[in-house]
């Protein structure tokens, strides 16, 4: 590119590149989970009564709490982005980013309580008690642990990404005109959120 091009155009191009790349990545993530949702659909169709019975075993309170936690975290990450991009307020940005990460951690803590409770009742893959139950129930809990586990893994990755973003913001590497990395981190966080929006009714709310 010749030198007459302004640097801001280059930065803009850089932003478009990174966003396009990230959206493609998000597409691939959706298809990764898509394989699991396909299995869920088939087995729920095949073992509908067992899936309903399994759903009764899950804590709706914990599920709802976690949904609120994750939705709030999506709000805080957007507020963080707004604080930097529009308000140019680094301190506020850092606080809301930290809040987002803390909410992610809260989600994981609640999740771990839930899992522990299931372990205590012998409702986990390979447990003797679960194996003595119907096929549908075995598959329900197999899918529950695999899908929420894979999701939890994504929450952890998202927290890692946002911690990196926070670090960049504090060190001045992400500035108000240079927010692409932060935008992409936030987009990834939203994806993690959206996947949970589907997991929550499919596991907790079926009757």
């Amino acid at each position, binding site marked *: 590119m010749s030198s007459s091009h302004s640097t801001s155009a280059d930065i803009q191009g850089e932003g478009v590149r990174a966003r396009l*790349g990230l959206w493609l990545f998000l597409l691939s993530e959706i298809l990764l989970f898509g*394989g699991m949702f396909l299995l869920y659909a088939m087995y729920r169709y095949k073992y509908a009564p067992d899936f309903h019975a399994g759903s009764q075993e899950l804590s709706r309170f914990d599920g709802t709490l976690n949904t609120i936690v994750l939705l709030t975290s999506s709000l805080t990450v957007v507020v963080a982005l707004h604080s930097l991009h529009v308000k140019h307020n680094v301190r506020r940005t850092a606080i809301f980013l930290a809040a987002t990460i803390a909410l992610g951690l809260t989600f994981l803590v609640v999740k771990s309580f839930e899992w522990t409770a299931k372990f205590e009742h012998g409702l986990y893959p390979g447990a003797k008690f679960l194996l003595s139950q119907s096929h549908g129930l075995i598959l329900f809990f197999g899918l529950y642990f695999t899908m929420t586990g894979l999701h939890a893994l994504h929450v952890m990755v998202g927290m890692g990404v946002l911690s990196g973003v926070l670090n960049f913001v504090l060190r001045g590497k992400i500035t108000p005109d240079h927010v692409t990395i932060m935008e992409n981190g936030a987009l990834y966080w939203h994806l993690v959120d959206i996947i949970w929006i589907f997991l929550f009714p499919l596991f907790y709310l079926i009757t």
Partner: protein
Amino acid sequence: MDAHSGDIAAPHHHFPWYTTSEGKPAGLRGFLTSTNHKRIGILYMVPILSFFTIAVILGVLMRIQMLSPDSKFLTGTLYNQIFTLHGVIMVFLVVIPGIPTIFGNFFIPILIGGKDMAFPRLNLFTWYLYMLGAVILLVSIVALGKGPADTGWTFYVPYSLRTTVNVPFAVFGVFILGMSSILTGLNFVTTVHMERAPGMKFSRLPLSIWGIYATAWVQVLATPVIGITMVLILVERIFGIGVFDPTKGGDPLLYQHLFWIYSHPAVYIMILPAMGIISDIFPVFSRKNIFGYKTIAFSSLAIASVGSLVWGHHMYVSGQSDTAGWIFSLLTFLVAVPSAIKVFNWVATLYKGSIRMDAPFLYALGFIALFSIGGLTGLILGALSTDVHTHDTYFVVGHFHYVIFGGMGFGLFAALHYWFPKMWGRMYNEKTAVVAFIILFVGFNVFYMTMLILGWAGMPRRYYSYLPQFTDLQRIATYGSWIMVGGLALMFGNLLHGFLRGKKAADNPWGGATLEWQIPSPPAEHSFTETPVITRGPYVFTDGNGDGHGKKEEHEQQPQHKR
């Protein structure tokens, strides 16, 4: 050659700059930290061609076993492990990454007039992922003393859940390779959208780029499905979640669905880039604009999209519903349409062309012949009734090798020859290349045509022994495989000799009109000293030959892209 590239290529040294560093052969460090797309292309080429050689040797071992019905050369388990390794290495380490990672990396930025890939660091990262996946696969051969997977490259459940050999390593390796493939596709799609030179409209992209572009979409969208499938095998083996285990209510058929949702589109990941390169080679060696540029470009997208909906044709006899069977069969026949469109367009390009029978073109012609046989036998397999007779026989194996080896393989060899002078600044020996092609082509057909016949006669695949009536044909197939390997050895030997001792190549030995031929051979670190401005299509030749079909504006304007 201009001064700029002369400085970098160090004229007193006769290897391209990307194999050197400050005049000396580049150390491993120079390569392993470079994000330059040309270096990354070379970085992929070395392991991919090495793995190809290893997998060919494994194939030869299988053919030696099949010399007689009661051969004791290999045990049954060892035979199973060898055909699994042959398949896994060929599919995941050679054929899927092959053309995009070697030639895509090296040539996409040049052919679209860009500076580099959209994400150069990510590009290097995909190579590390590739190597990590490869190492994990290779570890599966030796780890824990249980030996490599014996499941076939398809890892079908429930056997892959129960066998005691190292399936977990193999599927984890495939998962990592999948990540590499996704990120490569992501990078290529973004690059084609963002890095094109001014005037390089999509309608002016070389068809090789169209092929790789369509492939990149399939890589992004289909590969995650095999990723999760491989993870599920791991999770199933470790925790016993039950989703694929019939004793816990799981359905093995669902595994097959998930596996083929990726692995059928993967066949198009393998073949589309080769088709793209063939589309670049035909006009150059016919001195004529390609016939039906738009239909070839869009047929790539059609193959990529319809090809993603045909996976069930791998499962006609595995218990899926009859309705699913005929729908998948119909869609399978539909994919034949865009594939045939391409073949007709290539052949039509030859009509009234001024044909030059050089080695790259011979490989391209070989591609058409072999791919057509592969495609037509594919229709026999795609029809529900005939598939009942031919499924799980050598007919499938023969068909697959006609499509993939005859298609992707010959496309790769065509590209190796076509771009050889550009990549290395040297020429291979043309006569030897032609002789190697003839030996390879003859051996190939003796080998795989015999497999088709054996399969039609009922020889099942994946057996380490057979009924005595197949002995003669099995031996002919084995002899054919030896001829074929001889041709391969001569071809690679010739290329290696050309790399070390070949005559200096001109910048544009074939008279190509695409951008890579307008810059020095080998290209400098920065391909273009000035951003090229594109004013015409990729196959408008200016040497007075050819092109009776270009658009008016293309005739009137001189090419303006200069190095």
